């Protein structure tokens, strides 16, 4: 699982608030959000924007939808990107 609980928590809070109408009962980091119709193209766009703003990293464009399937899987990707100089979002002047 992810080494940084803070990333999981931030993604969890975003998914609960923005994608689940604030109703997070029974939501876990392993809930399959793709199969439950929580994640669609618009949700992926908003998650990308949230991740850029919160963690300062940009998700690769060609990422498969499965990458967004669970909060845990997405948190692991964010963790890896935090150590990848190429993924850092450049600060706007």
């Amino acid at each position, binding site marked *: 699982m992810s080494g940084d609980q803070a990333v999981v928590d931030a993604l969890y809070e975003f998914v609960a608030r923005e994608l689940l*109408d604030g*109703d997070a009962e029974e939501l876990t980091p392993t809930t399959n959000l793709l199969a*439950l119709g*929580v994640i669609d193209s618009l949700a992926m766009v908003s998650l990308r924007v949230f991740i850029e703003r919160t963690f300062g990293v940009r998700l690769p464009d060609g*990422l498969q939808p499965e990458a967004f399937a669970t909060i845990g899987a997405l948190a692991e990707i964010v963790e890896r990107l935090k150590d990848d100089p190429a993924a850092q979002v450049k600060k706007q002047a």
Partner: protein
Amino acid sequence: MTGVGRLDGYLVAAASRAPGAPALRCAGREVSYGELDRMANQVAAALIDAGVAPGARVGIWLDKSAAAVAAMQGALRVGAAYVPVDPLSPATRAGTILSDCQVHAVVTTARRRASLTDDGAIAARALLVEEDGPDRLRFAGAVADAGPWPARVSQASPADLAYILYTSGSTGRPKGVCVSHLAATAFVDWATGLIDARPADVFSNHAPFHFDLSVLDLYAAFSSGGCVSIVPEASAYSPTSLVEFMTRERISIWYSVPSALMLMIEHGGLLGVEDLPLRHLLFAGEPFPIRHVRALRERWPSLPMHNLYGPTETNVCTALTVGEIEPDRVRPVPIGKATCGDRVWAVTDDGREAAVGEEGELWVTGPTVMLGYWGQPPQGDGPYRTGDVVRRLDLENFDYVGRRDEMLKVRGHRIEAGEIESCLLSVPGVGEAAVVVAGEGLTAKLVAYLVEDERGGQARRPSLIALKQHSAARLPRSMIVDAVRWVAEMPRTGNGKVDRVTLRRWATEQKKEPV
């Protein structure tokens, strides 16, 4: 090439004219007309071996792929009809569909086949594709071993059934729209003429094969000898990848729901594209907010754009080529006038044909109208009543106004509230359910209003996640509700029916506890 009269005629003709020309691009692989023709014959031979006779149905439950297209063509070549099933559909729903129309054979993977639980679906002969996925071209078992099949168009009548597309049904079960060769080719020939399709064209295929939009992508390409490039599943979810796909693949004919284009405009940088490869842009399936159409028109003043309209039951029955957009227009562009040899008119509530300026329900007759719903009396020559309310603009043009009934539209998906409601009602603890749409365009959401069932005593209110899990095992993803509001009782109209107008207002106002 027009006037073939059979939907399988286009590919056969194109393959004999130019066997080396590209027919299909999928996951970085190109399949020539000759190769696709051979694959279709392979499927046809296996279907014959499996006892599939003219008039039978063949289910296709596969990801979008060359194999899936070959399966459709193979079914037609033996005089059977194909039934494409949503690859994202849960096994229970796929089984319901396959058994409803009594398919004789199913082309699918071993894994999908093993997941079927419905007796009718299990009884069908399975023709297996080795593995799912867009780059899988290999058939397994019976198809791989099938002998040669002489390439020819089946000799059956154009009035025969060509395919069945299942749509959401208000009674809780999906219903199968039966489309004849004649109806399909009337549309394909019209569309091919509209865009003056040619062998150099590259068509995008954005819609899934169980959506009628895909009929244009595949068959207008085959009828003109062009190439159809299948949008990879990963790109379908990413607006920037969609725009990149359009430019990289040099798409000349793009056809999709407006939602996809809205995402590409708002989040994919479409309007920033310098070297747009498009010759024609077509959209259908839902109203396209005028500000986006205006932005496209201002960015590319000479790009032909077409708004196509028609429920699955009539295929495209009206269309409008977007001209100049009046600066003060706030409504979406009109749906235009009758196409494909159809006749359309609006009928007012008191049963008259609507005069110019009046609203009424759009009725359709003509060659593209369906044969009927599977298992129900045939449509015959009578008009198909669309359930769509339109305003008559002049002698032949119409504006779309809205629905007469509870059918919902979310990002181009047609959804019967009743089908979702009957699914939610099967969850312990749910006593009453009514589903409405809040918002519009990209932000449209399905909101369920629920009343707790207190008869059982111990059943507690299921959570949103629990309701989604229950739905995901029974419904397509587009029909899984986004939000739930528990209410003490449903608002009712004077005659006791659920007051959906009030529910829509509550949902739009985001009221969590309306009572």
